């Protein structure tokens, strides 16, 4: 247990003095609070936590948390986090970002992270829009949302189902949180951090600026009761029937965690032997 962990840390101690760039009412404020609450709850030393992100409004989050952080490039949050976790398995690694970052440009890493099952938590602040670039459709945007000039008649493409994809890709921890329920979210974050393996928390995090209608989410989102499920087929069925507004830990199942294998004992000199004539 490290030096700076000696005194009890409160959630606000995990916040930096950097002022968020977020618009008033942005759902991401609640995610920030939920994270700091979870860290305080778990009494994690600040220096043992690393928050990794991509690019987007949501991806600005690491700068606001007083832990180690990396604000990387668009779509590459998961490889960045994976590299760190593999070499520093003792750290608590939390990846975070938006729906565009994670499901559009970052979709491939998302699938492969689910399979690879490196021990980390991935929080996606899904506002069904590209906030940072001023309001284009994201993969989770409804096909007929026509408010973006880039897709004036809507995308015409059915929305991406992140939880179903995560399940099919082999993720063992799948949860949905909501910015309007930060306590539940904190709890989910704690469970995700404690889960050995890749844990996905998809957060419904409204963008009042470009999706003002998402203010309605607070009337629509409900905690689901019949979960978590542990069987993937049942979970698939459940997800297919769900309207996307049920929150909670949906699926939980143990999977072997990705592990680096070492056969220690050799030195570089031993390796060089092989070149000798």
């Amino acid at each position, binding site marked *: 247990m*490290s*030096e*700076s962990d000696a005194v009890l840390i409160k959630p606000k101690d995990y916040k930096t003095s*950097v002022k968020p760039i977020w618009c008033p009412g942005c759902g991401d404020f609640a995610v920030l609070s939920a994270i700091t609450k979870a860290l305080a709850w778990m009494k994690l*030393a*600040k*220096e*043992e936590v*690393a*928050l*990794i992100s991509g690019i987007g409004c949501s991806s*600005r989050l*690491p*700068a606001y948390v*007083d*832990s*180690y*952080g*990396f*604000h*990387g*490039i668009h*779509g*590459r949050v*998961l*490889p*960045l*986090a*994976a*590299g*760190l*976790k*593999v*070499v*520093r398995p*003792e*750290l608590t690694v939390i990846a975070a970002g938006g729906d565009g970052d994670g499901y559009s440009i970052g979709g*491939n*890493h998302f699938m*492969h992270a689910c399979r690879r099952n490196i021990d980390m938590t991935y929080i996606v602040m899904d506002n069904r829009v590209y906030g940072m670039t001023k309001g284009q459709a994201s993969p989770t945007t409804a096909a007929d949302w026509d408010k973006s000039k880039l897709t004036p008649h809507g995308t015409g493409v059915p929305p991406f189902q992140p939880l179903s994809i995560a399940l099919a890709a082999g993720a063992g921890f799948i949860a949905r949180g909501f910015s309007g329920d930060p306590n539940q979210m904190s709890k989910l974050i704690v469970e995700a951090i404690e889960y050995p393996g890749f844990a996905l928390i998809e957060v419904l995090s409204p963008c009042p600026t470009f999706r003002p209608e998402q203010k309605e989410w607070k009337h629509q989102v409900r905690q689901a009761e019949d979960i978590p499920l542990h069987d993937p087929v049942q979970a698939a069925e459940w997800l297919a029937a769900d309207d996307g507004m049920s929150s909670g830990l949906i699926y939980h199942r143990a999977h072997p965690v990705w592990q*680096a*294998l*070492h*056969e*220690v*004992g*050799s*030195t*570089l000199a*031993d*390796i*060089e032997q092989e*070149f*000798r*004539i």
Partner: protein
Amino acid sequence: MTQHNNISIAITGSGGSGAVTAGLILLEAMAQAGFYGLMQRSAGPQIRGGESAVMLRFADHELCGPADVFDLWLALDWLKVRRFVDEIPLHGGSQIISDPMIGEPPAEVTGQQAAFIDLSLKQTAATVEGGRVNMVGIGVLAAMLGLSVATMHKAIQKTLSDKGKAVISASLAAIEAGMRLVPSGSVPLTANWQVATGERWNISGNEACGLGALRGGVRFVAAYPITPASDMLEWLAPNLEKIGGTLLQAEDELASINMIVGASFGGVASLTATSGPGLSLMLEGIGLAVASETPITVVNVMRGGPSTGIPTKSEQADLNQALYGPHGDAPHLVLAPLGISDAVFTTQWAVCLAERLQTATIVLSDQSIGQARAIVSPVPETDMLCTRQTAQDIDGEYRRYTLTPDGISPMAIPGTPYGMYTADGLEHNEKGTPSSMAADHNVQLTKRSDKLLQTDYGEHWAEIAADDEAVADYLLLTWGSVSGVVSEGAGRLRDQGYSVTVVAVRLLMPLPLQQMKNALSGAKKILVVEHNYSAQFYHYLMSLGAIPQDASSLARPGPLPLRPGEIVTTMTGEQHE
């Protein structure tokens, strides 16, 4: 036979003929016998069952490039040999060893002046249970080279160790049968060669890069396979494991580059290896490493370009991309090994510089280094200043990007108390907080640039071989893999009475301009030599004002290697024009 006790031998054959195995055995045998050697490969597009060729060169001294012409050619068959004919230049004294039973050689071969040595390789192979023509063939070569049965035995044992006893003894029997095809009184071709007494290594260029990486402290590698870099990654995987490191196979190059950035942020020296198409995909991540000042090393084993190009052949055509690929002003380092042995040193140095300067380093190897295998003197470990400056015992406010006299800011590694910060590819102030203020942009741009420009890179930036003359007639300026060929060309020019300086540049960016000027000063005629179409190095030197405007350029693309003779004719030919 060319001078200076060396000999060049080609072995060609179609699918399954075992040309490559033959080459590996002969290389090992010559090593056992106390000689040096170099083996390059050439393969057709087929994955297996395709034609292939090995180009061997042996000498009683270290070699670092192909000769002009081949002295011996062992043709296991003539199928598809057209694919290789332009890679196997012959001379009047060349000898082609083949079996008339394999049919007529094509006109491209018979049209040359070489003599044919017809031997009944097939029939001889048939006399041995499990005997194969390639083994009989190397038996012939072994005898011509004066190798003993005992030497061949050792070489076979080592090379075929995982093939089982039956194969080994059949091979040996076939080799011996082949040796008997050579008249016993013949003078071995290595008759007056000196035998080395010291230790030597049998190592490929890709392995050499891998070893250099490990020496530099690399303990994490993320990998996505690509020819001709894959076998470096495949060498690293088991060897990293042995010393507590990790290799992770990524889903693509976008992942692998970002994985190493993440791992390096975690405090572990990290590397990836790729080739042109992969480097293209890594540029955004390299820019992130530069902007966030996270040390990483990327080894790019160049192949023929552009686009998918010619994946199995060598070219030095990714220089421009390595220098200028990332968007924005993204100062970083570019180095190039000057040959197989040097790949150990250069890769280690690249990793060290990345760590020390907290930036991205690109190492430009190529197929002619990476996939070649050489018998060389062991490469001693070099002491280098490899340490990353870290922030420890932090007291007061930590500023990740704090301005320091040398531009290097101590880096807090996750886990360090009171060092918490967020690394960022957005422009930032000294604390790391995003900033779009002109003042912050300016100082951080300057910091990232100056920390590279103000470093004293010492003597290793180039290998300079000068004659005693105060002023050289000729100055040959080159970089990377072709340095060996250029040196050999220089030797010939010296034989012709010219005084010649060779400057082979290892540190391409930032180029130590003052040292370059010193090296070039007074040279009467400068030729810049490189292996690409558009004279990328020449133009780069021009862009820095590093060479006089009357310097000449010898730039030729792959897939054929540059040869020492080309250097000589370009230099002297031009003069007489």
